C-alpha cells in the first residue's frame, strides 16, 4: 500500500442517513481507515470549513457529498469540494436526484417561508420574522446562507464524477465503490455505481403477464401476498422504473419485507424521468374497462407517488408558475 488516500464527507440538505450508511459498513470501516485519512466529516468529527479551505490543489482523493443543494452554503461547499478533490461522488439519492427534499420544488421560497414561519398552527411569530441573509445589530452583522428558490441535485451545481444512489445508499454499493477506489479500477466517469437494470429483473415474486389491475390499493388497505407481484395485487410498486441494487442480488430491501418499492434508487441507466416511466408502466397493466378518471381517483397524489425521490432531476423539475 502506497500513500494514504484522503477522504472527505459533507452533508447538505439531507437527513443524515447517508452518513449513518457509511457507518453501516460495520467492521469494514476499519479497512477504510487503513487506506484513507478522513480530512473532513462534519457529522462525525470536529473540522471547520477553514480546515477544508486550507487544503490546496486537488489534495483530496475522494469527496462524498450527500444531500441536495438547498441554500448557498451547500452550493459553496460543493464548489470547494469540487476544486479540492480528484473524485467527487454524489452520495445518496438527494445528491444524485434531489430526493425527498426535492418535493419542495412544487412550492417556491416565498410560499415555503409564508407557510413555515407564519401559517402553521404551531407557529408563534408576532413580529413576523422571516429568515434574511444578513442582519445588522449595533456593530455586528449576522449572516445566514441564502435559501434558494428551488432544490437542485448536485450535478446542477458542479460536475459530478460518480453517483451512488439509494436512500440511504446500500452498503454493498458503498463497499463496491471503496474497493474500486482502493484498487484503482473505477468505471468511466459519470457512471452510477450499481446495476444498470431495473428492480423487476431481480425480483423473485411471481408475475402473471395476463393479469390486469382493476383496483389500486394503498399498502395500508390490505396484506400483500409475499409470493406475488405487487402490481398484480393492485399495490403500486415502482420496481419497473427503479434501478436494482438496493439489496445486492437478492431482490429488493423493501420487497423482502413485503413492502412495495418506492423508487429510492432512482431511474435505471438510459431513463431520464423515473416518474414518467412509471406512469407508462402503470398504464399498460391497467384493465382497459375502467375509465381513466377512476384511475386518477384511486391514486391520491400522483406526483408524490411517482416522483417521490427524483423531482428535481426530472424533465419538469419545479413549479413553472409563480403562485398568486
Amino acid at each position, binding site marked *: 500500500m502506497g500513500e494514504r488516500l484522503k477522504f472527505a464527507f459533507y452533508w447538505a440538505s439531507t437527513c443524515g442517513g447517508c452518513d449513518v450508511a457509511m457507518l453501516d459498513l460495520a467492521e469494514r470501516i476499519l479497512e477504510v481507515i487503513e487506506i484513507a485519512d478522513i480530512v473532513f466529516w462534519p457529522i462525525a468529527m470536529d473540522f471547520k470549513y477553514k480546515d477544508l479551505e486550507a487544503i490546496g490543489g486537488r489534495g483530496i482523493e475522494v469527496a462524498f457529498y450527500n444531500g441536495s443543494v438547498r441554500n448557498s452554503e451547500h452550493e459553496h461547499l460543493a464548489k470547494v469540494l469540487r476544486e479540492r478533490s480528484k473524485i467527487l461522488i454524489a452520495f445518496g439519492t438527494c445528491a444524485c436526484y434531489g430526493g425527498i427534499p426535492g418535493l419542495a420544488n*412544487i412550492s*417556491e421560497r416565498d410560499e415555503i417561508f409564508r407557510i413555515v414561519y407564519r401559517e402553521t398552527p404551531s407557529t408563534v411569530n408576532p413580529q413576523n420574522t422571516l429568515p434574511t441573509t444578513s442582519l445588522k445589530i449595533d456593530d455586528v452583522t449576522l449572516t445566514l446562507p441564502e435559501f*434558494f*428558490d*428551488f432544490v*437542485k441535485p448536485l450535478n*446542477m451545481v458542479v460536475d459530478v464524477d460518480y453517483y451512488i444512489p439509494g436512500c440511504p445508499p446500500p452498503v454493498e454499493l458503498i463497499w463496491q465503490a471503496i474497493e474500486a477506489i482502493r484498487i484503482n479500477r473505477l468505471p468511466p466517469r459519470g457512471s452510477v455505481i450499481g446495476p444498470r437494470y431495473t428492480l423487476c429483473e431481480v425480483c423473485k415474486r411471481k408475475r402473471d403477464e395476463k393479469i390486469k389491475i382493476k383496483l389500486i390499493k394503498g399498502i395500508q388497505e390490505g396484506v400483500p401476498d409475499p409470493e406475488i407481484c405487487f402490481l398484480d395485487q393492485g399495490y403500486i410498486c415502482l420496481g419497473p422504473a427503479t434501478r436494482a441494487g438496493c439489496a445486492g442480488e437478492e431482490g429488493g430491501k423493501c420487497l423482502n419485507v413485503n413492502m412495495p418499492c418506492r423508487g429510492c434508487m432512482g431511474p435505471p441507466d438510459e431513463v*431520464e*424521468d423515473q*416518474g*414518467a*416511466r412509471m*406512469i*407508462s408502466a*402503470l*398504464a*399498460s397493466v*391497467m384493465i*382497459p374497462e375502467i375509465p*381513466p*378518471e377512476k*384511475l*386518477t381517483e384511486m*391514486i391520491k397524489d*400522483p*406526483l408524490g407517488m*411517482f*416522483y417521490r425521490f427524483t423531482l*428535481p*432531476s*426530472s*424533465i*419538469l*423539475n*419545479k*413549479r*413553472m*408558475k*409563480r*403562485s398568486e
Partner: protein
Amino acid sequence: MRRSLWHRWRDGLMNDFRPVIIAFTCNWCAFAGADLAGTSRLQYPTNIRIIRLMCSGRVEPEFILKAFKLGADGVLVGGCHPGDCHYIDGNYKAAFKVALVKEVLRPLGIEPERLRLEWISASEGSKFAEVVSSFVGELKGLGPNPMKEFKGGEVGRYG
C-alpha cells in the same frame, strides 16, 4: 377610462399570441383524419405540428413533458375511438397516461387543459379541423406556456 397606449399595445400582443401545439397522432385514425382534413381542403389554424406515431399507446409521458419543457403551449394526443384501436388496446393506455400526466402537470403550475386527448377516426377530417380550432381558441385564452416566462431558479439539463 381611456386605456393607455401601453395597455393597448399589450392587448395587441396578447391577441397576436400564436400558440404552438405539438400533436401526437396515431397512424391509423387521427393522422389519417388529419390527412383527410388536408385533402378535403378544410380550413384550420396552422398552429399545429403533427408527429405521427404508429399508435397513441406509443405516446410516452416523457414526450409530453419534454414538449412542455421545450416551450409547447399545448399538446394534443390523437387516437382511435375506444374499441377501434389497430393494436386492440393502445388507445386505452394513452387515456390512462394522459389522465395521470394531467395530475402531474397541475402541481407543477402547468394548466392540465394544455394537454388534450381526442379520439378522431380516419373519416373524421372535419372533427380534426374543429378540434384544432377549438384547442387554439382555448390556448389563446390561457396564454403562453408559463415555462416561457419563468425566470426563477436555474433550470436543469434541458436548459
